[in-house]
């Protein structure tokens, strides 16, 4: 190939997006762009190579907007929609009026899912499980959660959450990305983008999954729930699995020594660097950084995942399930270990909360899966002096209906999805401990006091991390996007 031809080719070797972006700026832009390695077109912030950033991912914010209350978040996501009526929202009226039809004045036009819209009766049903009051403020907690109940003075129960979505995937996506449609970055990615990572050996955003014993074959979760959306792929969540290889494709193949690997990576980085100079695609930089991170994770991940040295009294707190990799309890213990390593956003998902039928049996199992370990996580963080700089969140994507889906028998019933009210709890730095916020009506169907929208929740979360939710934005497709879209108010009443 003649020299001229190579030069010509490098001018056409632009991907579609870069090409369109550049041609908009005119032919001069193309020439200048290829001369200068496209530095002019780099998106806001987000520069990183191993040379100029030895500390891993640097956030776009030089400092938080205001002083942060917390350094990290552990989000215990209860996927499937846990019933607020069996766990935190005590409604004796439903037991009194068991079997009666849901009054239209209460339903008030609420749209239903296809699963109960065909039902001709909506028989009210109360919790089959008892409730007691705990803590200084007399927080009502279900008998299903005896350990959580003991931590009542440390948690803030929000009974007035509401959402707009009525099905799982849009609802979870809404919570995680601020939009029901897929494609936006999730909370952890926004944080990685905004604040960067403190630990250069671990990603800023990690994900741990567990299956619930109440519904072992429940809905799957899409990996895009911890996706980076339009942000750099370096900000995506990294899933840690309960297996010999906690992070897939991390370990070297047999016969490859550490030194060989290093040489490979150095040479690869050199090639990629060349490629970057030629094409100017930011994703190449991102890829170099990811190779480097993966290399460091070869030692850091096994260290975090190996819980052999945790003493027995720690297992007594988290429950003996914590010995079984892949359980919720084991993941809670790992969450604490990741938090100790300064990982900024630790996302747990516990699946199986979707009790359309067989609710009493299934929810008891689900509650048993998560109760002790969630309480232990708070207690453990507390005694280590980490709770006041960590936010722990427990909650799902929506609540469940106050009427039975399917037949209501003496001992059995089910509940459909309910977006109008549900309960979550928060604990940790900056949160008023031991309070209950918001109130629902006697039917546990509508909010009557202090509603908290999903965007309000997100705004509050960012606020605690020192971020003004209106100011952490990313320009994409001609507009600035943010986690809270165009809404969201910080729920000041629950802030300490």
């Amino acid at each position, binding site marked *: 190939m003649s020299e001229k031809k190579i030069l010509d080719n490098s001018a056409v070797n632009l991907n579609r997006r870069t090409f369109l972006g550049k041609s908009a700026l005119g032919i001069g832009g193309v020439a200048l762009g290829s001369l200068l390695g496209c530095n002019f077109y780099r998106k806001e912030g987000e520069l990183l190579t191993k040379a100029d950033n*030895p*500390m891993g991912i640097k956030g776009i914010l*030089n*400092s*938080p*907007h*205001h*002083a*942060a209350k917390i350094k990290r978040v552990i989000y215990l996501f209860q996927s499937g929609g846990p019933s607020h009526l069996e766990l935190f929202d005590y409604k004796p009226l439903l037991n009194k009026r068991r079997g009666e039809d849901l009054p239209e004045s209460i339903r008030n036009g609420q749209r239903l899912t296809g*699963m109960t819209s065909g039902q001709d009766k909506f028989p009210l049903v109360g919790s089959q499980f008892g409730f007691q009051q705990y803590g200084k403020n007399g927080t009502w907690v279900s008998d299903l959660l*005896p*350990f959580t109940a*003991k*931590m009542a003075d440390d948690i803030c129960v929000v009974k007035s959450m509401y959402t707009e979505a009525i099905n799982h995937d849009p609802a979870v996506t809404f919570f995680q990305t601020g939009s029901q449609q897929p494609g936006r970055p999730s909370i952890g990615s926004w944080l990685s983008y905004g604040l960067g990572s*403190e*630990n250069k050996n671990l990603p800023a955003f990690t994900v741990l999954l567990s299956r619930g014993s109440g519904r*072992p*074959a429940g809905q799957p979760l899409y990996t895009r729930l911890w996706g980076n959306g339009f942000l750099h792929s370096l900000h995506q969540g990294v899933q840690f699995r309960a297996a010999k290889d906690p992070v897939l494709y991390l370990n070297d193949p047999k016969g490859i020594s550490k030194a060989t690997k290093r040489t490979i990576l150095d040479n690869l980085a050199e090639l990629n660097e060349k490629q970057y100079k030629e094409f100017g695609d930011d994703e190449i930089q991102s890829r170099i950084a990811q190779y480097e991170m993966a290399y460091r994770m070869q030692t850091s991940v096994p260290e975090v995942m190996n819980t052999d040295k945790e003493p*027995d009294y720690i*297992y*007594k*707190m988290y*429950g*003996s*399930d914590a*010995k*079984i990799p892949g359980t919720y309890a084991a993941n809670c213990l790992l969450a604490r270990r990741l938090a*100790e*390593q*300064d990982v900024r956003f630790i996302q747990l998902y516990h699946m199986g909360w979707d009790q*359309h*039928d*067989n609710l009493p*049996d299934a929810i008891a199992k689900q509650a048993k899966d998560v109760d*002790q370990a969630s*309480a*232990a996580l708070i*207690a*453990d963080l*507390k*005694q*280590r*002096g980490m709770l*006041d700089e960590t936010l722990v969140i427990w909650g799902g994507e929506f609540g469940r209906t106050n009427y039975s*889906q*399917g*037949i209501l*028998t003496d001992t*059995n019933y*089910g509940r459909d999805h309910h977006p109008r009210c549900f309960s979550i709890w928060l604990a940790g730095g900056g949160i008023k401990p031991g309070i209950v916020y918001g109130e629902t009506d006697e039917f546990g169907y509508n909010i009557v006091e202090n509603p908290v929208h999903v965007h309000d929740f997100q705004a509050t979360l960012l606020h605690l991390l*020192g971020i003004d939710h209106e100011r952490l934005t990313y320009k994409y497709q001609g507009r600035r996007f943010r986690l809270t879209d165009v809404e969201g*108010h910080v729920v*000041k009443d629950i802030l300490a």
Partner: protein
Amino acid sequence: MQLGNLHPLFVHLPIGILLMAFLMELYYRKKPEPKDNGIVLFTLGIGAISSLLSIITGWFLGDNGGYDEQLLDQHRWIAVAFSVGSIALFFLKKSSANQAQKFYLPSFVVVLVLLTLTGHYGGSLTHGEDFLFATKYEEPVIENVEKAAVFSEIVQPILQRKCVSCHNAGKAKGGLLLESEGNLMAGGDSGSLLDSLEQEGMSLLMHRLHLPVENEEHMPPKGKVQLTSEEVMLLEWWMENKHCFDCLVEDLHHEGKLTSALEALEKDTSSEALLADEVDEVPEDFITLLSQNDISAQLVSEEMPLLSVNFLKRKNLSEADFELLVSYKENVVGLNLGHTNLDDELIKQLKPFKNLIKLQLQHTQITNAGLNEIKRFKLLESLNLYSTEVDDAGLDQLSKLSKLKKLFVWQTPMTSEGLAAFKEQHRQVEIQGQIADSVFAASTLGPPTIVAEHEIFMDSIQISLEQFFDGAKLHYVLEDSQNDTLPKEYTGPFYINETTTLRTFATLEGWEPSLESTRNFLKSRVEVDKVSLGTTPHPKYSGNGGETLIDYSRGTINFVDGRWLGFEGKHMTATVEFKEPTVVSRIAVGSLSVPTNWIFRPVGYTVWGSVDGQSYTRLKSIDLPLTAPSIDIERLVYDIEIPPTILKKIRLRVKSQLKNPDWHPSPGGKSFIFLDELVFN
């Protein structure tokens, strides 16, 4: 750079130089000899040039806007006059004409007066009118806005900032004063200020504020510093609440943006905020430098150039690391030294960091001696000593930390008496030790894991029990035909050779005993050669074909585990061929019921036997009632007894109810039967 920005640089030159020239002039007039006027002329020349430079730069600066226009005009034109005067003065001095000599000194005085006026108006522009003599209005400091008085602490300061400079006892423009409640109530020449105007639907006060800036009646007038939108919002809120003069913020309803505006008025009196006003900015390069040395430093916020520093659990800290940090020692308010190699020697490096508010020393080698270095940190609010060797004597070192609020002491040698005594003297300190044992006292041991190759076996099978915790005792009961129900303690793997139910549980000191785990072990006495299915299973649940039914491994309640055969909307028939003709008296059929997922238990079984492998006779037919309404998930084994017969082949038909029952959420849908195993005895 804007040319106008040079104005402050030049303005002071003519003042000094011309005054100097005047003094020299007087000096040389008194002095008898020699009368050297050259130096005065030179000074006057420099003064004139500097006044010109000031005029030029000042002109640009004035055009940038943002100043009171009236005042600016006065300053500008007097300055022009002064400048012209100073140039004229130079030529008067230079001229030898008598006339000029006569005018020279009076002109000098006039120029100095102009100079004074220009300076005064210039000062008023930058520092405000009445800067020199007015008693300064002290803005109230609000610590908790909810308790603040709406008028005197919120409304009055706004009026003071933006209105009172014209509406005061001295000026009283429009006959209006805005310095007190009485003034506001009295109104001005245009009438009442606070009462609602009929045609506008709002008070004169709000009306004037809301008029377009171009309107002559708009207040503050064009060219004066305007109210911010928050200030207008706050005034409007006060007016909507009937301009209450005695209310507190908490008495009046407020929400959303208004609440934010109110909260923004609060003065942050935290140690961080106070420090932030005193310390220097931290350059970004410094933070980068730290990060290159494996020290993570984060600015506290945009407004607070304070640093929260994390040594990232490094085990190789040395004095050099602290020396690096010491250049911004005043800025460091948070220091995380947890899990590092910090010891009593290295902690001496902390001495200069006296502004520390949060200090984390957990999991380090420090002892009581180390605390000596930090006992005088006056601002320290949070101290983490978890997992250190600090004991009761160390607590005494902390008694001078008057701001201490949080102390973490888990896994230290401190005694509960020592801590109680400390708490007694320092009630404001929240001490966090170990979470009470009682919280997790009800922790239940996990049941033993039963390890066996299969649940179905031919001769005998080895079983072992496992538990995660060393020292746990495992107990088990075997319920077989001999009905041996005494629990035994597990010592090692054992064998069973009968159909048996194994129940086992574990105990361990300090834990609640585990729940039981049970497992049924089925003995199969007949070896099956092959199974051919007469019905095709659903492609999603086809397992390993007919083999699935005789592989000795049972399916779990997770019906997609590949160990089940699922049949949708049809009965199942299968033909089983034995290795050799065998006496068969019992057939066990494993099935599943998950009504939610449309899987129902079989409703009937029919068995045909064949002695020669060709012709079949019906041996047994059973019909079962339909499943009662229930959505419980169950794994079932159904035993079919047949008259003992020597058989070569068996044909089995398992009946499905075919359709979902009426009570099901989807009545009439094609229901499934799921089968996993056939055992012959």
